[in-house]
């Protein structure tokens, strides 16, 4: 699948979450996303980026703009080397949290995207990939 742009940004503190949100917004605008589609992917990015910082101990966000025939999409990959997620099924349930949040991060982000994938190995880290197409 051809890639138009490919950026990787650090995620260490809550200010980085803001920077990633803004970069995702800029790429979504560039890919021709409608305002609602932009808002959905930026919100999903914010949820997962926060998890990377708060639970993963920091990591990176990769932002790719993809082309599949006439369709364009934005794919985001969040990678950390944190403690990992012990029970993925549980982590994806609405309202489940090990922290102080609302437990909507993973499950909510999944609903806002067309593609969503979590891979996690306890003790080694977590990779969350999500994509939205227009």
């Amino acid at each position, binding site marked *: 699948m051809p890639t138009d742009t490919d950026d990787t940004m650090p995620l260490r503190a809550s*200010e980085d979450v*803001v920077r990633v*949100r803004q970069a995702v917004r800029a790429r979504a605008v560039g890919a021709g996303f409608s305002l*609602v589609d932009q808002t959905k992917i930026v*919100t999903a990015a914010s*949820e997962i980026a926060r998890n990377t910082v708060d639970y993963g101990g920091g990591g990176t966000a990769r932002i790719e703009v993809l082309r599949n025939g006439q369709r364009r999409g934005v794919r985001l990959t969040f990678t950390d080397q944190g403690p990992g997620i012990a029970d993925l099924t549980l982590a994806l349930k609405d309202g489940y949290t090990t922290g102080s*949040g609302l437990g909507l991060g993973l499950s909510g982000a999944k609903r806002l995207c067309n593609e969503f994938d979590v891979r996690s190995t306890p003790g080694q880290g977590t990779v969350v990939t999500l994509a939205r197409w227009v």
Partner: protein
Amino acid sequence: MGDIPILKIGDCLLVSIQVDMHDRLALALQDDLTERIVADHARGVMIDISALEIVDSFIGRMLNNIAAMSRVLDAITVVVGMRPAVAITLVELGLSLTGVRTALNVDKGLALIRRAIDSPERDDADRYG
């Protein structure tokens, strides 16, 4: 103190969030507002989010918390100016913001606060509750 100004208008506090808030700034605003409700004897709090491009679960929780804290401190919170795309996304995210009163704009928000403060049911419930 956070970087987001809190304006006092009569017995109401007005906050207009004009920046893309990181999480610590959102928490600071929550704390500042709670302190100001007590210090200024505020009866109403209006939060203008018309400049916010997204409301994620963290900001949603902050709005919920502010509404809950102000209720305990005998003030009413109204969130005004939510963008349509933000509302659509919030619902899909699964955040219903129960407990947060909303109005379309600042005028309607002020009217809502005024009605809530002046309503006799509320006065009775608060005085004898």
